[in-house]
């Protein structure tokens, strides 16, 4: 009996061996589609003349190098038929320095590339600005990370949607948060960013956008695909279509989105 007790004590340790591993997976590749990254940002209420639209193509999931697409004709039209043309400055990057934007206007994007024509429509959205920013040391799930918190006041009379991006040097890509006023209408809303690697002296770049409902819904579906909500309970992956339409062939649709949003940019130094 004594022998049994010894053995069982040793064996009785719980080994909760749940774990994650990087694995190799053979992936198929679908017919490539065009991608239009057309996010017009009107910064801090000033005239944001310089804007960039990027055109690329989908590629294999593990292929690191981006496939840029050259030779596109890109124009943005407003309600008064004012035309802004974008010129290619490097492969896939199309720039303008003459963009003028005004609120409450509808805009139309027209792109001609590789023999196809694309179009999208969007409207500018009313602005909200950041009220204040605070910092703390009890952020994150475990409550011991440095954090930066922004506060803003939601307009109670309408439905508002927000996009917040935090970036800092050690992050490979920005941390993105979506917020709607569904649960906090009319209140002062707070969004926090924290990371266990955040230290005193780090600079956090904060971009605060007011976006349209359609763009919010699109980003919501898109972020679900990025696996940021991964796990056994992840929702169904899906093909996320944006608002850009192929005028010649409806089913040969591109990815990406055409949006116009107000942007407030703030850099914060972590204390």
């Amino acid at each position, binding site marked *: *009996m004594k022998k*049994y007790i010894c053995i*069982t004590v040793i*064996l*009785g*340790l*719980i*080994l*909760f*061996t*749940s*774990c*994650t*591993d*990087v*694995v190799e*997976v053979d*992936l*198929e590749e*679908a017919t490539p*589609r065009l*991608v239009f990254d057309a996010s017009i940002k009107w910064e801090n209420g000033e005239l944001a003349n310089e804007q960039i639209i*990027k055109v*690329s193509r*989908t*590629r294999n*999931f*593990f292929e690191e190098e*981006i496939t840029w697409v050259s030779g596109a004709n890109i124009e943005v039209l407003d309600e008064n038929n004012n035309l802004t043309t974008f010129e290619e400055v490097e492969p896939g990057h199309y720039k303008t320095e003459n963009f003028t934007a005004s609120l409450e206007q509808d805009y139309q994007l027209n792109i001609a590339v590789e023999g196809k024509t694309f179009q999208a429509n969007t409207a500018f959205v009313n602005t909200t600005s950041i009220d204040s920013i605070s910092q703390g040391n009890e952020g994150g799930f*475990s*409550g011991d990370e440095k954090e930066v918190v922004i506060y803003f006041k939601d307009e109670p009379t309408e439905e508002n949607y927000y996009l917040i991006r935090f970036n800092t040097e050690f992050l*490979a*890509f920005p941390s993105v948060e979506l917020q709607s006023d569904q*649960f*906090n*209408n*009319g*209140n002062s*809303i*707070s969004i926090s960013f924290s990371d266990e690697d955040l230290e005193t002296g780090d600079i956090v770049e904060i971009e605060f956008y007011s976006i349209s409902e359609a763009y919010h*819904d699109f980003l*919501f579906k*898109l972020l679900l*695909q990025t*696996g940021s909500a*991964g*796990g*056994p*309970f*992840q*929702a*169904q992956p*899906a*093909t996320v*279509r944006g608002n850009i*339409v192929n005028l010649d062939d*409806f089913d040969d*649709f591109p*990815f*990406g989105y055409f949006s116009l949003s107000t942007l407030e940019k703030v850099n914060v130094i972590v204390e």
Partner: protein
Amino acid sequence: MRSYIFAKKILTKKLIPFFVFFLCCFFSKAQSQTANLSGIIFNQEDNQPILGANVSIKNTSYGTVSNIDGEYDLKLPLGEYEIYFSYLGFEDEVKKINLQKDTQINIYLVPKEEELEEILVEENVERTEIRSASMSTNRLTSETIKQIPVVLGEADVIRALIQLPGVSNTGEGSAGFNVRGGSAGQNLILVDNATIFNSSHLFGLFSIFNPDAVKELSLYKGGIPATYGGRVASVLDIEQRRGNTQKFKGEANIGVVSSKLLLEGPIQKDKSSFLVSGRSSYAHLFLQLADNPNSAYFYDVNAKFNFIINPENDISVSAYYGRDVIDINDNFINVFGSSFISARWNHKFNNEISGNLSLIANDYLYDLEITSAAFVFETGLSNINLKYDVSHRLNTDLSLEYGIESLLHEFNPGLVRPTDALSDINRRKLDDKFAWENGIYLSANHNLTKDLQLQYGLRLSSFFRLGQNGFSTYENDEPVFYNSEIGIYEEAPILESTSISRNETIKSFHNLEPRLSMSYSFNDNQSVKLGYHRMVQNLHLISNTSAPTPFDIWAPSGPYLQPQKADQVAVGYFQNLKKEAYSIETEVYYKTVQNSFDFINGANLIANNNIERVLLNGEGRAYGLEILLKKNKGKLTGWIAYTLSRTEQRTPGRSPDEPGINNGEWYLNNFDKTHDLSVIANYQLNKKWSFNANFVAQTGLPVNFPVGQYQFQDLNIPVFEGRNQNRLPTFHRLDISATLIPSKNESRDWKTSWNFGIYNLYNRMNAASINFRQNQETGANEAIRLSIFGIVPSVSYNIKF
């Protein structure tokens, strides 16, 4: 002339009454010349009634066999008798009586000392039923459930079920189970008549059923009798044990992660009893010792009280209360669980008819508090259920069951409540929903001939969606809008939101559900069976993840959510070999489900007040072959279960212009597993040691792998096309365990045993999911496999007193 008239007077006035009186005396005397001998036959060791025990009377041809409640009854002429009560594996009991009036004798049979395994076999509950019309049914006893080795040493009802053919689940640490490709919300789970809406603790690590409190369970995968209704895939009917009416007993089990204690005994000897069983996990205490501020634990309590009022009436009251608590750093606090109380009054009208009146109250709640954001999210549902079921034996070849059932449901889809004044969350109540669900049924068990037995029935289900606040209407009655400009489905805007009184019906659904199964026996050992059923489901589990989570919402049918209707046909062949040493059960089934819904892309279910805006109607179909080979006798027993199956869903657009999901083509549903093999083996080496092994091998679940990627706003976005086009790697695992019964047990009243187990013996990292994402440090894309359990050893100690 006068004497004639006088004689006639005497005849009519005196003789005829006297003659009538004489006749009456004769008849009543003839009646009073017999009496009823009846009672219940129990197993003295565990006080459970014995089905199939023999009652015979020496030197006569009178005799009978006890029924599922252990009851027997004989009508005998008055006189003296020597009555033999016997059952294989038990010592015979003889009673000498002088029968002068209706007499009740309860018998307690003592198990024979040797040949333990014989008793397990003759436990009629689990044997392959050749002649009976019932098919697509599996029965398990508590003993079998406890023999299957499981993770962390805890015997588990659902883990035992998924070793049967046609039953599977979505992975380790995953709640619920899937029957013939159906989702977890398509199983009707009953514990002593109470409906269970969430069958798991801790997101699927353990089921809420305490195996010690379970007497036996039946799983109906097809040929479902008309007594049941309400879900389309299966019925799991669990009966709880009743307490010992003779003496106090108890059992304790101490394991590495959790412990259980069971106490039972008489309240009034021979008349009433109680049984209370509780479990609790304490692994979180180890975490606290290591200064880890997180904890996850569960506890549950089962209780059952039985009162035999008189030979015709008995009352049983059954209750359950269970809670799960997950606390991550006092910031994220999750509390959820079920509770029910179920009371049943059984009344015997006579030897042929008995009725059960049941009243059940049921509650399920889910609370999530996030202290850093200062709010609480509360959701839940409750119902109250009244039913009356009658068992009516017309003759030895025909017996009926009929009854009526009524349930009132209340659903709370959610309340968001700020916990302090400074919180930036507003109070928001999603509208409660109400429904009234009814069923009336008639079912017959009919032996047409010795070889041809039928079970047929009809159920009428009537479902009323009752009024509520905030009932929304939409343009064209379409809650989902297809934006043809950009080709996506969106939530349609709400036209109007009205309040309708709870006394009014928004919409009602009436459905007839025919049920039929029949068996044709070639002989005592071989038969062929055929079954058909239609099942209608009016409560739907809305979950867009493969595995159920407590976020899932139960929603009632209504104007925008149609009842699911399943039609299933099954054909089976059953055979016992070598005097039941081996049995074979094979079945082929085909099932179609109408109004099987699926979700639009990007459906957001959390705190959605109008989930009809993200659902699309479709149809499902499933077909498969199930094979079960059992070895029932000898030192080595067990079974091999193999299922070959396919389950698909099709969700077309509502008009030719709409794509639907996956372009309106059939796609695998989330629970499809082409091959599913389970092997269970028990080896009884000697009185001291027994060994168990369990091997499973299954096709991986359908998933979606990306077919490309692109950059958008500095993020890598994976591209997916279609639905469920890929699969996770094959899932396989071997578990072993050993049970040690010390020889000291024979010389004392209290018995102990040890159980040692190793889960996942060769440490296979089975993929619960594969996520494709960007590495946060390098920015490169990678595939991450999540496995729940590697190799897990365990030990537990059991005491019976």
